[in-house]
Structure formats: structure tokens, C-alpha cells
């Protein structure tokens, strides 16, 4: 079922890319572990009103996408925003020797979570785990 939806969304976003308006990138999460690169993004696609597409690109550059509702997009983005704020405003991110665990970017803010920040690495792990779960 999920596969069917992904195919439908891919076709839809493909069609939309061909139109003049470009999709807005609302969220972009980039994660690397043991030389594997994973990326999640939410794009707002304008096609007779807004639709939202959540995408996952794995280490082989294979991308899966699914259409999500505005509420779902907001809720996912909000979870990212909270981690970003905790990293940026609660405790200053350690700037020296930061080995990046995950990079989180929204349309207005971005941050890198360093591996030595055990608390936010743990929180991000749960978030990534949930995102990954959406594609199974």
C-alpha cells in the first residue's frame, strides 16, 4: 500500500516540477553514519493549492516520497524546530571539534547536532527513527 502511494506521489511531484512554480523546501534533515548518508525532506508543492511531500533518500541515492497532510507536515517540522531551538538557544552548540551527527534545517533555521551532545543525539535518534518508520 505504501509503495503504491509513493509511486503516485512521485508521479505527482514530477508533474509539478515541470510547472513554473518551484516547491518550497520546508524541512531538510541530513544524517550520516558509518559512511551512509540519509536525507529526509518536506517540500510544499503548489498544484491547485498546496500539497506536502515527505521524501527519504537513502545511501544509494534512491528516493522514496509520500504525500502528507498539512497537519502532518506541521507536526514533523515542529519536532525538528524544537530540537533546533534546544541546540541553538538552550545550550550553545559546541563549535570546536564538532563531529556532526545530524544536520537539521527548516525554512527559517538550521543547526548541526554534534556527536558529543548526548542529550540531543538521543532525541534526534528518536526523531530519525520515527521518520524512517514512515517509509516502511
Amino acid at each position, binding site marked *: 500500500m505504501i509503495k503504491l502511494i509513493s509511486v503516485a506521489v512521485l508521479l505527482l511531484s514530477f508533474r509539478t516540477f515541470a510547472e513554473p*512554480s518551484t516547491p518550497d523546501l520546508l524541512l531538510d534533515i541530513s544524517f550520516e553514519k558509518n559512511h551512509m548518508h540519509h536525507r529526509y525532506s518536506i517540500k510544499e508543492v503548489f498544484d491547485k493549492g498546496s500539497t506536502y511531500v515527505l521524501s527519504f533518500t537513502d545511501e544509494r541515492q534512491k528516493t522514496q516520497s509520500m504525500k502528507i497532510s498539512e497537519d502532518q507536515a506541521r507536526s514533523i517540522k515542529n519536532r525538528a524546530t524544537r530540537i533546533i531551538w534546544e541546540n541553538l538557544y538552550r545550550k550553545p552548540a559546541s563549535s570546536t571539534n564538532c563531529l556532526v551527527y545530524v544536520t537539521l534545517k527548516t*525554512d527559517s533555521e538550521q543547526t548541526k547536532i554534534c556527536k*558529543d551532545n548526548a542529550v540531543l543525539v538521543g532525541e534526534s535518534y528518536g526523531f530519525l527513527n520515527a*521518520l524512517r518508520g514512515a517509509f516502511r
Partner: protein
Amino acid sequence: MSTYTKSVLKIVFLIQLFSMNSSGQERDCLVCTFPLTPESLKPGQADACEDLYAAACVSANGKYKYQDIIKKEQAKIKKPVVDARNKAAQQMGYKDFNDALKSKLKAAGLTIKSSPDKEAWERLVNPDNFLSINGDADKIYETAQQCGKEKSELNAIPSYLLTEPAELKNIVHRYQTFQTKYKELSIKYNAQDIPNFVDQFGWRCKNLKTAGSSLPKSKDDPRLVQECANIPQLKRQETELFREEGSEGYQRKAEQFIRSHIVMDTSLGSVSLQTPVKSPPKSEVESLRDKIKLLDESITDTCNSYDSIVTNAGKKVTSDLKKEIARSRVTVESLIDSAYSPERQKLAAGIAQSAKNDIQDLVGSLVKDPKKRGDILEGYGDLKISWMQKPEASSYTKDSNGVEVLNEETAGKNLNGSARTAFFDPELSFFTSINAFYNPAGSTGKEKTDEQVTMQPAILSILDENPYAFLGAIAHESGHKIDPYISYINGYDLSGECEGLLNCYRDSKSIKLGIGQSGETMADYYSSEVLAREIQKLPQEQRKQALMSSMEIFCLSDVDINMSPFNEVHPETSLRIGGIYGANPSIRNVLGCKNDSSKFKTCGLNVSILDAPMVNPPTKDSGATAAKGAK
């Protein structure tokens, strides 16, 4: 299959096992002393020699063999987390986790309905699917349900029948009172989560713009346009509030901030209604009726907006409680006790040793270069399986509620391995994802990490009932040490040694190996060699069942979505099982397969295992990578 039938099968098997042991056929095989899974005894859709996947995972009637037990397995995996949360909640003075959550929600002004929708509540507490999280407010919270009820009452007023301006004014007043009430409540809930509020506000500002144009739409509220332009100036205040979250006086300050700076969603605010410009002058009654009509339409949005604000507030409270509980000493110790018992450690170490011995045996015939071979054999002696230890008492501190929790400040230094981060994930997903991994020696930040294999608790729990599956998994992870990529990192590049076999897997009659799958495929192959070596210690008639038992995690993952985020990309399950394990000549020999499968090309290295009868002699065109058979 019923539990009863399963139990009977287990007993029957134990009797078989006993007679086998007493006949002296079992030779130094730790897993061989355990019963096989009931699923492996069910007739499959195909014979294991023809298609191991169809034999191990699919029933004769075409249904997944593990379909019936998947729910039970998922619950079993989650149980330690559920139990730990309840225990921690009890220590905090509540009946259990649900009771703690209800109480925290109530304290935040979110009273639970007397009989909340069970499924909606479950989605809040244990969000199974990340995306099924919205639209539940009126199923859980009294206040959201109340909004809907009051809205319906207003909608039901037959204002078109009223002719007295005073009556109509009274109705307008009722609508406005309704909107004011939910506006005030919204301010209260929004104030509890400033980053979310800012995010949602930004979302509204974003919606001001039409696609491809930065100009506001003509109907945009000019005050909102102005506030959106002010966003950058508000940032400092917002982040200051965020830092004060949870402190005394925070709530009042946050509410004040929202009230003074931000234009509320018009559906939540008092609607200022303009008379349409070109319409002819209307009587007072007509004007009031028009006003009521507009108000009547807008209150649907009022409750919708309110629902999502309430939903968010509830999720914030839930997440805060989960965060506190996850890092509490009670949870930490309860989870470590349940997943990392000394009995399990002993069994896991024994099985890991079998896997290492078998891989060392394989390396003996795979690696010709004596230096490389020596390095690898020695390296396997040092390979450890990570075992989480309870943090020392000094790792904890008391939080603002007096709960003993892991100290955030020192966690990075005091805690090791997975324990460093696992308890800071509110969902505790390290304990519920079916995953395992191999880490080469390296460094993470300032810390050096040892080379090790990590079997996450969900896989450790499989150990108790099905050590065959555990053997397959730990052999796979240990095999990564000598996969074509990691062997290079480890200082003994084996890509050359693997190339012939990988070529066989690229064949269209094999698994059509894709780019980036070589490491995973080789790890599966090494695991299949280990299984062949252990399973051959069983009597012939039990080997197929044992091999099928060892496939349980794969079969479950095919029906289950609860896998891990970092699970590398493998070939599809049916190909892994049928085309790698089932097509391994050592396995085929051990099973006594008479011919090659018509579905998968036989692919394996030219290695021999002791005592396996030769049933699959090499063919002329099989080349260097196909089966040469055992001696």
C-alpha cells in the same frame, strides 16, 4: 496456530531433542540444544531446497507464517519499555504511566474525557505510525469536545426566524463570547510551547504569499502582514522565553507575549465584520442576520484551529513526561535489567563465539595471503559484543520534580556506548527497534570506541526463544568485519577475495545485486556459512527446520514495519533468504538438497566444511564462484 498447538509442538520437539542428545549426535553446538520455532514446523509454500524464503516465511496456503504472531511479538518487544515507564511513574507517586500522563495533562489544563477513545489515547501514548497523530483532540480532551458541542448549539439557533434586533444582538453576543473563550484558551495552550507557536505563526505568514509572488494577497489581514514583517525583531524575546520554560512565572510571561505581539488566527479572535461595499443599505435586522451568518461559518474554523492547538499542547505534555521518565534512574535500571541479564550475556557470548569460530574457519580457506589471514584471525579473537552496564550512582541528579534522572551535563563523559544517548530519546526506540550493528574501532568526538558488535534489546529478546535467529544475526554483524568495505577500513582489504562471489550475485538468475549492496550481501553470505556449520551438527531431519527457524527475524521484518532507521539497505528479504542463504552450496549440502534450485543460481565461495556429505557436485559451467561442493 493456537498457543496450545504451539506448546504441544514444543514438547514434541523437546522430546526429539532429548533423544538426539542421548544418541550422541549433537557435537558442541550451543544453539542445537534449543527447540525449533513452531513456524518452522508449519508446512511452507515451497521446499527449502527450492526456495528457502517461501519455505521459511510463507505457509502452504500463501499466507505469511508469522502474520498471526506479529502483534504478540511487537507487544513482547515493547513490554520492557511499558513496564519500565510504569515503574518509574509509580516511583513518582502515580498508579502507572497512564495515570501520570492524565495527571500532567490535567495540570496543563487538558482534562481527559471520562471515557476517551481508546485508540486515540494509544496513538498519543505509543505513536506506532509517526503520521497517524492528528485529529484526535475531541476524542481525548474534554475541552476540545466542549468546543464542538458549543459550536453545534450555536449552529442550531434558528436566527432566520428571529425578527427582534435585541434578540439577534444577543445571539451575536453569544457567538462572540464563544470566540473569546476559545481565543483565551488557545493563548494559554500556545504559551506552553513557544517554538511550536512560532513555527505555526511562521506557517501562517508563509501562507500570506501566493505561489511565486512575494506580494500579500489582497484579502490578507493588514495587521497580520505587519506582524509577519516584525518576526525577526521578536526572535530575541521568543528565545528568552524558551530558555525560561518550566520556571515560575513563565506561563504568565509567555501568555502576555502572545497576547501583545501576535495577531491570533481570525477564526479564534473576535471577528470584525465589514459590510460588503457595493450592497444596498440594509435594515438592522438584515445586517445582524448577515453578521450571524458569517459568524456561523467562522466558528467551524474556530474549533478546527482549537483542536490542533489542543492536540499540540497534549503532545508537548506527553513528550515532556516521556523525556523525564526515559532518563529516570528507575527506567534506566529496569530496562538494563530486563535486556542485559547475566543469563542472556552468557548465552549471547557463547553463540557469538560459535559464530566467530566458524568465520575463522571460513577465513582459513577464503584468504590466501598469510599476513592478511593472520591479522583477521587474530582480530576475531578481540571482537566483543557490547553489553550495556548500569550507570554509576554519580551519573544521576535530581530534576526539578525531585526525580532522580541522568545528569545531562555529565552524560557525554560518564556514559558509554549506546547508554550515552539511548535514554535521552523520549520514545526509547533503541530498546524497541529490531536491529543490530557492527562498529569498527574509531573515535566519536573525544572518545575512542572499541570495535564491537551491538545487538539491540529487541534482538536480544529473540535469543530466549530462538537462538538460531540470534546466531544468524550475530554472524551477519560479525561478518561485516570482513565485508569488502569494512575490511578495507580494518586494514585488510578483501574486496578482491569477494569479487568472484559478488559477480555470481549480480547474475539475473541470482539476486541481481545492486550498487551499494555488496557489504550487506557479503555479511549475509558469511552468516549463511556460519549457519551451515552449526546446523550440520544436528541430525539430518532437523536441519531444514533449524535453518528456517534462523530466518525468523527476516520473516518478521517482512510483515512488520517496526525496524530500525539505520538498517542499511539490503537486498529484498525474499532475495536475501532465497538467493543468498538458500543458494549457498554449503547450506545446500548440509540440507541434502539433490539439485540446484530452479529459482536461484547457486552462489558460494570455494570453501569446505567438515563432515557435510557431498550431494551437490560442481558442474562444468559453474565457474570459480559457484559451488564446488564440500569435501
